[in-house]
């Protein structure tokens, strides 16, 4: 069951006839495949990234009322934009899933189409977010205005930086599959990219709830 097996061949003799979930638990006779180890390691990294975000969330939650006489979330947030941003990221998670299936099936149109759609949706999300940030800074609600705005720009901006880096990674993976084909090592990178992108969507769910919906309603 563990990724790093230690010795004893508990189920080796029964491996040939082993079938079903019970047999799967018993058989500890071989090391995990590289794909599992890479995926698991990247999963641990993503969880540590989520823990970093949780510190920013805690900071935001503590400081969200400290507007220092400046504008509050209720004055600044446009839920219409946030809904479009959310739609972009949700759909991009779906198209990223399609790309992962396409990569597994070595299906070019599905992989490249899925990745291209993910890229367009990611860029659409970034365009709306940058537009929102620039609009806020223009009306004097930049990160230096209040503790609330410092925490807001840190949290939401950090997510935006992740999406930006994810988009660059996405383009790299399109190029790598194009140049090197559906090789096992390239496909492991595609797996990690898909995990990364889905995790960004999970963090966005927390952001649109905690920052925007709770902020605009309070």
């Amino acid at each position, binding site marked *: 069951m563990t990724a790093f097996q230690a010795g004893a061949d508990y189920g080796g003799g029964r491996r040939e006839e082993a079938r079903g979930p019970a047999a799967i638990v018993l*058989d500890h006779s071989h090391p995990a495949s590289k794909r599992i180890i890479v995926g*698991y390691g990247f999963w641990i990294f993503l*969880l540590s990234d989520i823990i970093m975000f949780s510190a920013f969330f805690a900071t935001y939650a503590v400081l969200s009322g400290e507007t220092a006489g400046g504008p509050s979330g209720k004055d600044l947030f446009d*839920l219409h934009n946030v809904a479009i941003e*959310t739609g972009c990221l949700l759909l991009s998670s779906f198209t990223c899933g399609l790309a992962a299936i396409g990569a597994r099936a070595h299906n070019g149109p599905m992989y490249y189409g899925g990745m291209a759609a993910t890229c367009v949706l990611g860029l659409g999300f970034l365009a709306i977010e940058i537009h929102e940030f620039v609009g806020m800074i223009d009306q004097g609600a930049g990160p230096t205005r209040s503790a609330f705005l410092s925490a807001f720009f840190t949290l939401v901006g950090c997510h935006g930086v992740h999406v930006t880096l994810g988009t660059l990674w996405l383009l790299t993976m399109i190029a790598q599959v194009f140049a090197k084909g559906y090789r*096992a*090592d390239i496909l492991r990178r595609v797996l990690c990219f898909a995990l990364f992108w889905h995790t960004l*969507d999970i963090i966005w769910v927390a952001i649109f*709830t905690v920052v925007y*919906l709770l902020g605009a309603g309070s």
Partner: protein
Amino acid sequence: MSSIDDYEPLRGADHAPGDEPAGGREVLEGVLGYLVGLALAILLTAVSFFLAGTWLVWRPSIPIALVVLAIAQIGVHLVFFLHITTGPDNVNNVLALAFGVLIVMLIMVGSLWIMSNMNNNMTPMHMQMGQSAVWFMVA
């Protein structure tokens, strides 16, 4: 030596997070899984946005409802997009996730608890200081 395609784990091995469950699922089945996930996520998101703006329900209940909906949606994402399951090949992924959730909860709940406690203890002090303290806070 790694094979050309190391998707299918050896029998009894773990399951990479993000991979579809082993057992030769077809492309169409995979797409259907993501479609179900997308539909559920859109439904939960739509309810969240609707609740945030509505006056149809008792307003003080809305923050709790939004948090519950967000947790449900994160669950949908984990199951349908990241393919985290309760199967024996997923125990390591789930344990890592559980530890991550524990740390996240400690940071979030701990911070909010301590800070609200400190705020409560601070209140009598600036009430004693009276007018000057209020002026200081406004400035």
